[in-house]
């Protein structure tokens, strides 16, 4: 009986496909696919419906389905295109089959519903799994990428190291900051570490607490930590919150922090070119006289 019904669908696939294409094209206007060219949309539709019929024919998930879903994912087609398409297929097929039989009793009706569900559901499951798998993969890759960016340490010159922080600091990141900071101080033999918070949007008590702990840990291993890049509005919120940052030096900009780092390591910046120019000017003016 089931095979008979299946054959009815397969033999009349042309009619069903035609109806399906009509329905899907009708749905198109109101949503996501409006940026996709008509030709591509039509050819994808045709391919999609072929894939559906192959899998109905072969009774199960096929390699064609795998290929098709992989391609759609790569092209960035929305998942709703596929789920909508399959819902339409279910509706059209059931409609068609009910229209075929002269008299439909509830038994027959239930059988047809059941059968079509059995075709459509494995396909939906497979595709949704593949889509969400690909999203999870992307998210985990981005997580790793973010982690790599989260606490970089730059040894700018002997004994001076900078850690620029950009973006939100959560507990996980705070842990990384602490670890990288201490590892880096030992590895680069840094006397002074500058923590730059120019790019940190909000400094609340948690962030401040982590920074204080990191600075304290740096002090314990014998180096100095300077907090730089404190914007005026951040300075005001820190004062409002009543956070005590007086245990270590702070500066408004990386440049000022770097200057005091040089002082702390008994060095200073000397402009070589300009002094030569001055001497030349002096000689020139002497010659003129």
């Amino acid at each position, binding site marked *: 009986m089931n095979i008979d019904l299946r054959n009815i669908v397969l033999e009349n696939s042309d009619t069903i496909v035609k109806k399906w294409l009509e329905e899907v094209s009708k749905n198109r206007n109101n949503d996501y696919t409006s940026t996709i060219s008509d030709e591509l949309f039509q050819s994808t539709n045709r391919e999609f419906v072929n894939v559906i019929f192959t899998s109905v024919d072969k009774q199960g998930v096929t390699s064609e389905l795998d290929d098709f879903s992989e391609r759609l994912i790569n092209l960035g087609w929305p998942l709703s295109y596929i789920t909508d398409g399959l819902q339409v297929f279910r509706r059209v097929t059931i409609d068609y089959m009910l229209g075929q039989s002269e008299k439909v009793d509830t038994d027959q009706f239930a059988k047809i519903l059941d059968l079509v569900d059995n075709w459509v559901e494995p396909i939906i499951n497979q595709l949704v799994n593949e889509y969400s798998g690909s999203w999870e993969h992307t998210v985990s890759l981005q997580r790793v990428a973010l982690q790599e960016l989260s606490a970089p340490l730059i040894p700018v010159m002997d004994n001076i190291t900078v850690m620029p922080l950009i973006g*939100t600091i*959560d*507990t996980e990141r705070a842990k990384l900051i602490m670890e990288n900071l201490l590892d880096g101080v030992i590895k680069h033999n840094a006397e002074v570490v500058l923590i730059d918070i120019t790019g940190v*949007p*909000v*400094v*609340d*008590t*948690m962030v*401040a*607490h982590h920074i*204080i702990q990191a600075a304290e840990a740096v002090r314990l291993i014998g180096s100095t930590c300077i907090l730089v890049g404190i914007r*005026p*509005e*951040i300075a*005001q*919120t820190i004062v*409002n*919150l*009543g*956070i005590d940052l007086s245990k270590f030096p702070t500066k408004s900009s990386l440049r000022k922090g770097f200057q005091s780092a040089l002082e702390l390591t008994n060095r200073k910046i000397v402009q070589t070119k300009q002094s030569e120019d001055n001497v030349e000017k002096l000689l020139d003016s002497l010659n003129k006289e």
Partner: protein
Amino acid sequence: MDFQSCVKIQKEWDIVGARQLGRERAKAIGFGTVDQARIATAISELARNIYLYAKTGKICFEIIDDLEHKGIRIYAIDSGPGIEDISQVMEDGFSTSGGLGAGLPGVKRLMDHFEIDSEPGKGTQVKTVKWVR
């Protein structure tokens, strides 16, 4: 109560979502950068308290815009364990989680108006307002 918008706090990253929305709202009604930072920080503290102590809850925003004054009202609502002694948590330096203990008293100083209501075992509600000047 009819809120204009709420953010659910369930994960640590929801704190970021809440304060971004708050900052956006604050900017839209004409707060300056310093007050935006104050509001964002206050939301961050309130949301973090929810995340740390109550696990789940919500932050809601209400824009006040009438003839006399303009501002933003922020509600932090949870049904967590509640607070035994409110005067204790409003003291600077008190913390049960090893933090700085500046959160709630800090929020009070960051904002113009602050109300806290808590019942042990039932939950906590913080209502706070900042006016545009």
